[in-house]
């Protein structure tokens, strides 16, 4: 039987029909394998689900008086990530960030690669970043407003070099 479980358990025991591959070459002029640009890419579904969960949090969600996550910031986060994914994924691949909320109601996105770490705080009106490449708080850390070209200047820094 072909069972699939939480860890994708797929023991196929019976012969299955196979695909007939008709060529391995660029398709003819009238067809293209390029996909259309969706508003929410399926590879980002887990992140959107996490943002949905964050959006349901109420004030004092952590028991320490934290603000309710800002709904505008959640929408801005969705757009920020969709734009970055479309730009980066076809070129150098993609890694979904860890998403959470800050005590001020911002959305916090975190990526790490080796000792490098990038954290983006998405607020309703402004977004900021912190990047670090070691434990020293002064010499190995930089922060500031999130630049327009952050995908190039920050995310690619993290994963490309």
């Amino acid at each position: 039987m072909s069972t699939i479980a939480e860890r994708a358990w797929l023991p196929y025991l019976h012969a299955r029909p196979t695909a007939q591959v008709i060529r391995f070459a660029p398709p003819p002029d009238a067809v293209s394998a390029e996909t259309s640009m969706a508003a929410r890419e399926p590879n980002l579904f887990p992140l959107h689900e996490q943002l949905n969960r964050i959006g349901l949090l109420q004030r004092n969600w952590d028991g320490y008086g934290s603000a309710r996550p800002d709904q505008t910031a959640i929408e801005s986060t969705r757009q920020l990530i969709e734009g970055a994914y479309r730009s980066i994924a076809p070129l150098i691949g993609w890694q979904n960030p860890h998403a959470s909320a800050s005590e001020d109601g911002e959305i916090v996105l975190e990526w790490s690669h080796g000792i490098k770490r990038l954290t983006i705080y998405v607020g309703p009106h402004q977004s900021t970043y912190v990047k670090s490449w070691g434990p020293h708080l002064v010499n190995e850390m930089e922060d500031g407003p999130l630049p327009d070209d952050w995908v190039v200047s920050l995310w690619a820094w993290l994963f490309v070099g």
Partner: protein
Amino acid sequence: MTLQSKRYKSAPITEAVIEIRLQPPAPPDLSTLEGLAKSLEKDFPKQSPMQFVQVSVTAPPSVDQAPSQTLSHAKIGFRLAKADDSRVLQLRRDGLAYSHLAPYTEWAVFRAEAEPLWQKYRAAHLDAKPTRCALRYINQINIPEIPAEIEDYFALYPKISDKLPQQDTVAMTLSLQMPQRDLECMAVINQNQVEAPKPGHLSFVLDVDISRVGIENWSDSEIWAFLDKLRDRKNEIFEACITDRTRELIDQ
């Protein structure tokens, strides 16, 4: 009722996209798109610029040196969304994409909303020729049992050789590019296992994108008539990829 016209009570469509591309203007001009976006502000109050990363590769001065890569970003258009996020409109230099997010209504509604938006976009780009038209339907099917027999729910699934020393996988991704000869177009079918939105469920994405290029001499009416055909083909493909067990799930 034929299979391709079946309407389900809980259609698993998370997003439907109509995309029509044009030859982008040279040099790039975003002011036209900005004006168009502004004219649609009442219906689409959420607006933000869309950016794209470009890679430039510079040839090395000598053969023993590696080529250098430069990343840069460029604005390609604007992303507009309704206040409730039910619809998203991408106004790009190279065309328009209109997305109907969940809950899906029906093709007639979706098409009727998209066509006037296209006409406005087209009016602002009268000299540009259309290059590609496409329909993409992204479905997320949640199976309420773990473990499950995948062939109980899908007629399309990967075959894993029983000779492989281990049968376990930690993710499933299937991607097919299938020319549709009768329509002279391409269907790209992607099927992935994704994180389930609810505990005790398995979740799969069935993503069907059908597109046609080489439409430079088509009129608008020809494009929209063809999109109707693509919609029928999309339904045929979807029905061919699922089983009755899934039909029961999405018709409750």
